[in-house]
């Protein structure tokens, strides 16, 4: 075991005592234990809100990485508009201010009957409730030839980190006049507007640095999120630079050839200078191993408590769940995580239950000073998460309104990551 234990517990005592002054007394029994696996947006938010709302609960967060880099806003890093450091967030505040026990190990197995989690270092954690926030994994053989070695040549950059850095290096070293091919995945996938935001911001970068370069989007779908807003912006900002080919034109991407950096569809082969291949997705590996995913590859949950429909006592939030009308976005993960935390707190401590409010809000960049936003509210109806009210920016909005949205997006990132990581 690493040296974090004693140090973290030392810090924890002070923080926990301070918090305890403002909280009703625990019911004179041992603290309930909640283990959260996965320190992405969903997992970190559950841990934080559980720890903040109930001192009678001991919260342990299991996350192998020391820092988390957000996938949202990584398109800005990719095109030179933000530093990688600005996307990176540590877990120190969650440990120090909220008294969360943070263990930097991987969870390798879940034993729901014994209510234990096995860690990579051989140790075991016992829980009263478990929250799993495993994010996404890529489906094997979704595109022929796209294996781990190919990812180092034709990056997905769909988990922020080394892959994002690699794609940025490739874009920077690409010669003017080169072809950037973006392979967009089938539904459902993490962050529906993001492939098209990526194309938009890469176009903006090309316009500044490589004005003769072209972008080709080979889509697994025949339409995409906020298509009218994107296509309007592509015509206004980058006329002739971005071509989008729906699956009905190409038959879809069937294979890649990493040696020649080629993307192969049913009818043609496209040779790229830089290729970004975003494959089909499913719930993260641990969810598959632990029997939390059904045949769809995603995890069915109760829409009120986010408890697994397959394993009682285990809750899931974020991209891995079957979210009904809720898209796979960081905002949704954060919103689900709060509802889940309050439901677990009510179960374990008897605190009051109130109707949950679930939302998605997205700011999406069309150009560095042109962003649009949407907002949707959701409610559980007949066991499913249904969208209730939805508003999105309009095509005819003024450039000043769009500039304001781009500024608001920056402020949102700051507030949101502060909400998640403290």
């Amino acid at each position, binding site marked *: 075991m690493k040296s974090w234990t004693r140090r973290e517990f030392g810090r924890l005592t002070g923080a926990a005592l301070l918090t305890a002054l403002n909280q009703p007394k625990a019911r004179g029994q041992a603290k309930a234990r909640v283990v959260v696996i996965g320190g992405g947006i969903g997992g970190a938010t559950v841990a934080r809100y559980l720890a903040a709302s109930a001192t009678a609960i001991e919260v342990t967060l299991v996350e192998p990485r020391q820092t988390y880099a957000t996938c949202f806003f990584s398109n800005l890093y990719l095109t030179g508009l933000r530093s990688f450091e600005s996307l990176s967030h540590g877990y120190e505040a969650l440990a120090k201010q909220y008294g969360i026990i943070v263990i930097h190990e991987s969870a390798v197995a879940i034993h729901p009957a014994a209510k234990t989690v096995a860690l990579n270092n051989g140790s075991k954690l016992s829980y009263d409730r478990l929250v799993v926030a495993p994010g996404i994994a890529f489906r094997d053989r979704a595109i022929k030839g796209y294996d781990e070695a190919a990812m180092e040549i034709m990056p997905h950059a769909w988990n922020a980190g080394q892959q994002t850095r690699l794609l940025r290096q490739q874009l920077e070293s690409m010669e003017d006049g080169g072809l950037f091919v973006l392979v967009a995945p089938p539904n459902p996938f993490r962050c529906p507007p993001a492939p098209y935001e990526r194309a938009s911001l890469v176009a903006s970068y090309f316009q500044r640095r490589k004005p003769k370069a072209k972008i080709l989007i080979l889509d697994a779908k025949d339409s995409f999120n906020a298509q009218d807003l994107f296509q309007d912006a592509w015509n206004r900002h980058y006329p002739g630079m971005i071509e989008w080919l729906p699956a009905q034109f190409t038959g879809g991407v069937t294979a890649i050839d990493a040696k020649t950096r080629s993307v192969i569809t049913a009818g043609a082969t496209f040779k790229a200078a830089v290729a970004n291949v975003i494959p089909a997705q499913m719930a993260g590996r641990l969810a598959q191993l632990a029997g939390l995913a059904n045949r769809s590859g995603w995890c069915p949950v109760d829409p009120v408590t986010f408890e697994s429909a397959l394993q009682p006592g285990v809750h899931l939030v974020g991209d891995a769940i079957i979210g009904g009308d809720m898209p796979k976005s960081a905002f949704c993960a954060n919103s689900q995580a*709060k509802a889940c935390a309050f439901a677990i707190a009510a179960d374990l401590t008897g605190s009051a239950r109130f109707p949950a409010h679930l939302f998605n*809000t997205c700011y999406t960049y069309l150009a560095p000073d042109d962003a649009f936003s949407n907002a949707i509210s959701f409610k559980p109806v007949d066991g499913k998460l249904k969208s209730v009210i939805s508003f999105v920016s309009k095509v005819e909005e003024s450039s000043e309104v769009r500039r304001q949205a781009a500024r608001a997006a920056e402020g949102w990132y*700051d507030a949101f990551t502060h909400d998640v990581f403290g």
Partner: protein
Amino acid sequence: MRPVARSAIATGLVLLFSQSGAAAGPDQGAQLAATCASCHRLDGGGTGIPSIIGLGEERLTNALLAYRASESPNHIMHVIALSLSDEEIASVARYVAAQGSNPR
């Protein structure tokens, strides 16, 4: 404006508060404010998104009622406010206003 006239204008709000006082505990306000925190920093910091700290209960309530009534000027706040009942608006306004008087 004289205080008397002002409170007369705000009569509707006063009723709103007194109705909800018994039903809504502080927990509800805290849970609703968790939604605010996804975009607004509750320590009063941040730029680009207007701060909601230090505004007071009445201004927060008025703002939420106005956002609920119209898509303009902000469709995000319109969606948020439309999901809130009168009682929930009172509850979250009271909670957020209290954060302003007790800065961390």
